[in-house]
């Protein structure tokens, strides 16, 4: 044999040859089935299903969003049933201006023109035909947010001006449009001279149903104190200076929706859960999952089944996007209104994270029947992202809450008919006893 009298070099070759099978073993990576379950004892994953009445609490919370916290300031009219108006406050308009560079400022005594501009989101507005927006001076004594006080101020003698909002034509995809409502210069000068705020109210005048959704934060008062074209107009955003002791409330009341007549057909009774409408409503659902399942098993599917009951008074084509949102409050928070407020998409601002922990549903208010919500990802979120004992609660809210009269209703756990009460269909897997065979 060649290596009988071989050298160390041959030993190296021999060693290399012997290592080859080891290297071959390392490269193996195989996945096959076929021998389970006979040779795979103790690995049985058993799935169990259960349908339970899900809630310890289910209730409708009325009045969310709070005044001034809607994503739009809505101005709407629907026959004799819906009347929603907008209030904008310009509480501290500048009374002085600098006529030219290097000169002292001087009081405004003349105005070239004045107007209030609003930015309308046309795609979510309902503008089947031209509608007129009328603007009124709503400033005056008394409670400055109460409907009973403010609504009568939309009177002819307080009318400041109006503007026509064009309809949204077929194929028109222009989303934002700026409308300018003229303000009589004399009226504004009088306000400036008396150091009074300018508080205006907008309402829709339309033969048919109309909804104008104004983007808050973009509403401005503009007035030009000088004929000198080198001096630009004064432009200020809506700003409230009352109440003096609450900066958040001042911000909210700078521009808000005034619901003179809310959504029709929404009685708040215990047999129903309501989502949407005006004033805005959310439904709070606090789950009561049996401890035997919640503490030891893993829930792999959770389907909430609600039975919808129709809401009359809306067009058949009207739809509402319903957003289930987990309550993110700590377990110490028990007030239903507060819980309903503290619901949000926990991943909203996390780049790359799951953007929708729960699927949204588009529903028509006039529909009826069972509606299923898949809550599996919410269960996973509770399990993996919330330390301690999470609030096992979900809030159902409308995507355009506070800015749409549309609402949907479901039977609650207090419904007389048991078959239409909410139920939770669970698929869960008990622990697999594999570690200790």
């Amino acid at each position, binding site marked *: 044999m060649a290596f009988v009298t071989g050298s160390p070099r041959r030993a*190296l070759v021999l060693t290399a040859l012997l290592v080859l099978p080891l290297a071959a073993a390392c490269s193996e990576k195989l996945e096959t089935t076929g*021998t*389970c379950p006979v*040779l795979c004892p103790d690995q049985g994953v058993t799935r169990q299903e259960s349908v339970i009445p899900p809630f310890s609490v289910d209730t409708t919370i009325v009045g969310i969003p709070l005044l001034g916290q809607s994503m739009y300031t809505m101005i709407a009219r629907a026959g004799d049933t819906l009347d929603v108006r907008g209030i904008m406050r310009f509480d501290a308009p500048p009374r002085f201006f600098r006529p030219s560079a290097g000169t002292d400022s001087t009081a405004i005594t003349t105005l070239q023109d004045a107007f209030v501009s609003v930015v309308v989101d046309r795609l979510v507005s309902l503008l089947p035909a031209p509608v007129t927006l009328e603007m009124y001076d709503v400033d005056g004594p008394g409670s400055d947010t109460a409907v009973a006080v403010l609504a009568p101020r939309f009177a002819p003698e307080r009318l400041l001006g109006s503007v026509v909002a064009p309809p949204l034509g077929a194929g028109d995809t222009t989303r934002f449009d700026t409308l300018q409502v003229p303000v009589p210069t004399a009226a504004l000068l009088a306000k400036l001279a008396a150091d009074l705020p300018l508080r205006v109210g907008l309402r829709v005048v339309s033969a048919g149903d109309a909804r104008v959704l104004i983007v808050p934060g973009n509403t401005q008062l503009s007035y030009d104190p000088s004929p000198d074209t080198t001096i630009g107009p004064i432009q200020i955003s809506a700003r409230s200076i009352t109440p003096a002791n609450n900066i958040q409330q001042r911000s909210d009341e700078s521009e808000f929706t005034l619901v003179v007549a809310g959504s029709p057909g929404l009685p708040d009774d215990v047999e129903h859960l309501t989502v949407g409408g005006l004033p805005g409503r959310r439904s709070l659902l606090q789950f009561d999952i049996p401890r035997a399942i919640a503490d030891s098993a893993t829930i792999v599917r959770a389907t909430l089944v609600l039975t919808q009951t129709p809401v009359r008074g809306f067009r058949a084509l009207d739809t509402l996007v319903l957003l289930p949102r987990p309550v993110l409050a700590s377990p110490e928070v028990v007030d239903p209104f507060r819980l309903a407020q503290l619901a949000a998409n926990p991943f909203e601002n996390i780049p790359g994270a799951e953007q929708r922990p729960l699927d949204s549903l588009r529903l028509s208010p006039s529909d009826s029947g069972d509606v299923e919500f898949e809550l599996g990802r919410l269960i996973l979120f509770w399990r993996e992202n919330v330390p301690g004992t999470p609030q096992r609660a979900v809030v159902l809210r409308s995507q355009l809450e506070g800015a749409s009269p549309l609402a949907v209703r479901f039977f609650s756990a207090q419904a007389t008919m048991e078959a239409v009460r909410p139920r939770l269909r669970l698929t869960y897997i008990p622990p697999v006893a594999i*570690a*200790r065979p």
Partner: protein
Amino acid sequence: MLLSSRPTPAPVGRPLAAAALALVALLAAGRPTHAQGTLGAQGLGYPPGQVSTSALATGGATAEFDALSPLNEAAMLSSPATTIHFQYAPEMRETSLGDASSSSTVQRFPVFGIVGRVGARLALGVHASTLLDRSWATVSSGQFMSNGAVVAYRDEVTSTGAITDVRAAAAWRLAPRLGVGLGVHVYTGENRTEVVETFSDPAFTSFVQRTLVDYNGASLSGGVNWAPVRQLALAASGRAGGTLRMNSGAGTKLSSASVPTRAAAAAQYSGITGAVLAVRGEWQGWSSLDDLGTEDGLDARDTWDLGVGADVAGPRIGNSAVALRAGARLRDLPFAVDGSSVRETSFSGGLGLTLARGRVLLDFAAQRASRDGPADASETGWTFSSGIAIRP
């Protein structure tokens, strides 16, 4: 004894580099284990046998005389100098069940340790060896009905980890042909299991369960080697006493059981020039581990392990002879399947190289094993074992 009988080679240099390269290759080859639904890895796992590569090549027959196999403490006296050794032994196996079969590769590092000599009569050593290797993975799939719809699922179940036997031992040469030894064993290790079930329907979220258990325990062992005549050596060893505990990852005791009692005897004949013939028998009381599992989970059984083998001086490389080895082994595995014991029959062969003037010992072995379980289940496997021993 086999180690001490090797002639000392001459040149140093390239062979040492080759050994180092081989070691690097072995270490770099480490990968996660893959095993599925096998006959061998039932219960608490597969017992690699706690034998070195050279002993594996002889069907385990020489293990009672092998300083690198942590079974008989007295065998440490056969090491002529301080020796550090390491073993790598991947197994490629195919499991058949009826018409279905599955292949898997398991990678093991079953034995490593150090044996030191203190004078001519005393040897001390510490070894870590795999008592039970519970590394496997299974993949299965199926369908079930949910709310009137068919949903497909896929299960992936993985277990990694092992129970490791760490032995500290001392051996004393009472007479020129009689050595005895005692060992203290500490058992350690953990098993990590993961069960993942995924679904075809996105309305379902995945099921993931990860579990960790760890082990601790202790026992005592002893061994004796005696050569009544020059050509014949006899050996016996055993392990007894002690408790093995299984704890949860949080440290809570889940169960405990007696460490399996072990008794072994072997004989080795060297009356033929350049050849050593050996036979060995071992009994282990694995059934004591039944208490470690759930009430009806483990089906642990006492086992016999019989081996016969030969180690002969082969062709020379440089000044050293290549050791050629062969053996056969018949043993039961400790954990039954479906009420049936699993029996393993294996044939093995290998060789040993002595390099760098005896400072580096390289052993290679290949073992072909066949395992029979319940009626239509069987398994075959190739184990390629390599061991390196360095005498600094």
